[in-house]
């Protein structure tokens, strides 16, 4: 018990003294997850919207695949990316394994289906609500997509935040492809795992508080967004 209490005190001190390791790891985490978020959103938001308004032959199949991808175990994603990037893999010559770049790839694979799926659902609902009006007003395809994205922007942001929340808290895949190398690929989750294993609870807890704070902020933002959406106050 004492050990834990001392750990908490030390953790608080680390945070308020802006400990260099702690700051460095936090920034790297943000850098990796935010980059992954931007790339994943750039892929998933248009794709989810397109899936919602476009009728084509294999639409149902595409949606089923998307939902299946959402359930991919991150560790397996990590394994596959590892095999692709490892020296003997197809992209081995690029030397990307154990770099932040590899971690970004893994996170993009993990969160893109999630963001696309939420986007698809929200956009389908909005499209069925707007369909008749937009057709009646003789809108062009481009104008329709613009109206949907603009009026669905809060749900799209919610989707992106959910993706970010998943990325920043993920450990299995980035541990495998990043290797948890100090000052290179060590991020919040992998550092917590390592420090806990070493029995250094102070840094682990300090990093844990930062992670919890980030996650809470994301969730509050999601909550606030969906409330303004529901109550129509904007």
């Amino acid at each position, binding site marked *: 018990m004492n050990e834990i209490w001392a750990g908490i005190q030390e953790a608080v001190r680390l945070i308020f003294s802006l400990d260099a390791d702690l700051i460095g790891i936090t920034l790297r985490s943000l850098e990796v997850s935010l980059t992954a978020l931007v790339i994943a959103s750039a892929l998933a938001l248009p794709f989810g919207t397109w899936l919602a308004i476009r009728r084509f032959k294999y639409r149902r199949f595409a949606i089923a695949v998307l939902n299946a991808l959402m359930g991919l175990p991150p560790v397996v994603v990590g394994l596959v990316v590892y095999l692709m990037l490892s020296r003997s893999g197809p992209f081995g010559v690029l030397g990307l394994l154990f770099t932040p770049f590899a971690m970004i790839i893994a996170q993009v694979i993990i969160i893109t289906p999630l963001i696309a799926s939420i986007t698809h659902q929200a956009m389908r609902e*909005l499209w069925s*609500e*707007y369909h*008749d*009006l937009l*057709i*009646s*007003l*003789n*809108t062009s395809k481009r*104008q329709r997509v613009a*109206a949907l994205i603009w*009026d669905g922007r809060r749900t799209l942001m919610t989707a992106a935040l959910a993706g970010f929340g998943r990325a920043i808290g993920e450990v299995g895949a980035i541990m495998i492809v990043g290797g948890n190398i100090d000052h290179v690929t060590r991020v919040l989750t992998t550092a917590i795992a390592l420090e806990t294993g070493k029995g250094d609870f102070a840094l682990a807890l300090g990093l844990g508080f930062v992670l919890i704070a980030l996650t809470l902020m994301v969730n509050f933002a999601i909550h606030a967004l969906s409330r303004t959406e529901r109550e*129509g*106050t*904007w």
Partner: protein
Amino acid sequence: MSQPISVYLNSILVKRRGKTVLGPIDLDLKVDGFTILLGPNGSGKTTFLRILHGVERASSGVMQWSMPNEQAHQAQAYVFQSPIMLRRSVRQNLAYPLQLIGMDKDEISSRVSEWAQKIGLQDALEFPAPRLSGGEKQKLALGRALIRMPDVLFLDEPCANLDGRSTREIEDLLHDATQVGTRIIMTTHDLGQARRLADSVLFLLNGTLHEKGPASIFFAMPRTIEAKAFLNGDIIE
């Protein structure tokens, strides 16, 4: 007044889930003044209006407006049976149809104020449209449809759920619209309203066009017993 508009339908048939919902309809309709579409619930009025406007496609048959379809559609507007509100303010809802055609900002804002006044929502311009009352939504939908000054306006039960005063306000707006050349095709369940407004009448029953003609004749001496029964308020099978 602009040139005459008409629409020609040849064996228009609408099937939904294997059931014939509308048709076959053969019709050469001169769209002029105020046309009222009458018929009991489920007789196909909404379907008929949607086909005419082109938001729904017929299963078979031919329909042709007296101008190219694209041009015809651009000059039409439609008020749906349950109003569709964009998740935006009242002002933005009114402005949207004008933004789509690339009208300049000053012109848009002056038209929006003018129409907000006409529909009595001038004090609610910044209010989110989805939170308006049912009647206010109906008025906003009407204003948004008229703001582009369409040649042809379709209305599906625009006064359902409205009280007497709102109904009169809307009828006045519709009357004004016809004065500046908008032709109106409208469904209603209110026979009093139909008598007040109609220049001509189309009577639908079980998806087929039962009777059509000038309002004065239809109301005074309907040709079919079904129409007679409908006007008497009897339940027709």
